[in-house]
């Protein structure tokens, strides 16, 4: 908390994220209408007092749908990145700790995954599974752990021969203890930064997939699939396209600001620069 206030970037990012979190949690109480209620008497109404963001082609209230949509992007971001971080940290830790041929096998695998265009891979898998929010989260998670692996491995390699690690080893600490009690806590900072930035790109990926119709399925609303509707009606209803895009923009911006801000704050190299 105290760290955050020192950096305006990180602070504004943090505020945005807390706001989105708040909206996502309290969506049922904040939204004036049922997000899936179809009202054929009020189709494509422009924004007004009764419908802040207008209505869509089925007469549903866009504002309420947006509020519920925030839950999707939040959930996808956090779960996908959670999966990626767990896999990435695990593989990176093993590679960096044991080195040798285990390391080369894991890193070759990482290189291979990295050279397949990620969005193609995600698209291929998603299209063959039934598109659903859970599948999206899992697939995004399974295709974005490589960065974390590289990072954790590099971190472990540089920490592995420090004196305190050698001392712990000499005292008979098990491999598991060395990794979990000594090495991991000391590599936590870059992992956190990468994860926060990862959430940003996961949110973008989800909205892209939903936009293509391969993501969250109707009637459930996500910012991406509201935009798909917006594309259909772009000539008559600008509000359907404008608001979800803005929401994605602001949320992603929030995670990026927080991530970059944290990186600046926690990186000792940058501290020296400022002096």
């Amino acid at each position, binding site marked *: 908390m105290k760290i955050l206030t020192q950096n305006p970037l990180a602070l504004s990012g943090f505020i945005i994220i807390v706001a989105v979190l708040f909206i996502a949690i309290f969506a049922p109480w904040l939204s004036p209408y049922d997000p899936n209620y179809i009202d054929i008497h009020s189709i494509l109404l422009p924004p007004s007092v009764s419908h802040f963001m207008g209505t869509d082609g089925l007469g549903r209230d866009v504002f309420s749908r947006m509020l519920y949509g925030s839950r999707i992007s939040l959930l996808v971001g956090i779960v996908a990145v959670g999966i990626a971080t767990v896999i990435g940290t695990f593989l990176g830790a093993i590679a960096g700790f044991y080195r040798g041929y285990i390391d080369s096998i894991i890193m070759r695998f990482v290189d291979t995954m990295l050279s*397949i265009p990620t969005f193609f891979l995600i698209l291929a898998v998603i299209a063959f599974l039934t598109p659903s929010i859970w599948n999206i989260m899992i697939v995004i998670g399974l295709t974005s752990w490589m960065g974390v692996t590289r990072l954790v491995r590099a971190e472990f390699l540089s920490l592995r021969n420090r004196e305190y690690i050698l001392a712990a080893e000499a005292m008979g600490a098990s491999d598991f203890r060395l990794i979990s009690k000594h090495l991991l806590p000391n590599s936590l900072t870059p992992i956190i930064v990468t994860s926060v930035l990862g959430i940003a790109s996961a949110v*973008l990926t989800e909205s892209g997939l939903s936009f293509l119709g391969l993501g969250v399925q109707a009637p459930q609303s996500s910012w991406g699939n509201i935009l798909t509707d917006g594309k259909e009606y772009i*000539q008559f209803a600008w509000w359907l396209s404008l608001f979800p895009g803005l929401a994605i923009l602001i949320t992603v911006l929030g995670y990026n600001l927080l991530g970059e801000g944290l990186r600046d704050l926690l990186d000792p190299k940058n501290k020296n620069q400022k002096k």
Partner: protein
Amino acid sequence: MLIGISLISFFIMHLAPGDITASESAFNPKASEESRQKLRALYNLDKPLITQYGLWLKRIVKLDFGNSFASHQRPVLWETKDDKGNVTKGMIQDALPITLMINLIGLIIIFVLSIFLGVVSAVNQNRWPDRLITVIVFIGFAIPGFWLALLLMYWTGVTHSWLPISGLHSAGYEKMGQIAQYLDLFKHLILPVFVSSLGGLASISLYVRNGMLDVLQQEFITTARAKGLTENKVVYGHALRNTLLPLITIVGLSIPGLIGGSVIGESIFAISGMGKLFFDAVLMRDFPVVMGILTIGSVLTLFGNLIADIGYAWADPRIRRGITN
């Protein structure tokens, strides 16, 4: 490495439930279980996975990616001649140049603009040009490309009709003169290229800025300044050259992202490049096309990385002479 890629793309395809026979016969209620079996046998789908992979790999080595499962049965990679001498063009053969063109133009723009923005930003650290550029960069990072594409399309194409909004050529393209043809293509390319290069522009200019800030701190810069060199020479002659080195690698690494990003861009602008081809193939469960594009895309990436490595060696005398540190 290549084998790994082919393995991954092959098995993902085949782990998926449902196959082409399901979608082909879904439209035909008369299709019996027997005729489905025949179809499967025709496409070798009845053999065990390992055998299928082996067969596929054997053909890949000969650069034969097979024919599309879709009804027109076009070859996936390259043109073939049938007995009567009719040439059928390959699907990737048609699509690849389009995507490559958009992305190469995009890369050049990214390179030039982001170096400029990054340098301006670094030289004016914490003054208004830096602040302004940083804000733009952060927004560029966060903006969903397809949303921007949609808005731009609406604004420039529909409301003002300044720019064409879809495809690569206007109607009557064949009848235009040479220059008019180029101009027409150029107009069609503005929006897709802009949208596809925005994300890369943001990340690379941020990278140039941070790299420049690092380098400008170093002692040889102080030395250069002390020698009385002009600020321009110090910045562009000494600092920038040292910042550009790692940039080569970054650009190499960004290639898969660019190719992957083409899916959304090409679907919105209705451009029949690799991305759209892939998207359509995925929806139709057209295994040969999907696997062909995954493989070709990955090969392109490896090729890009190779070029990046060579470029690195070419640009850095320390590597060229095999000196480490």
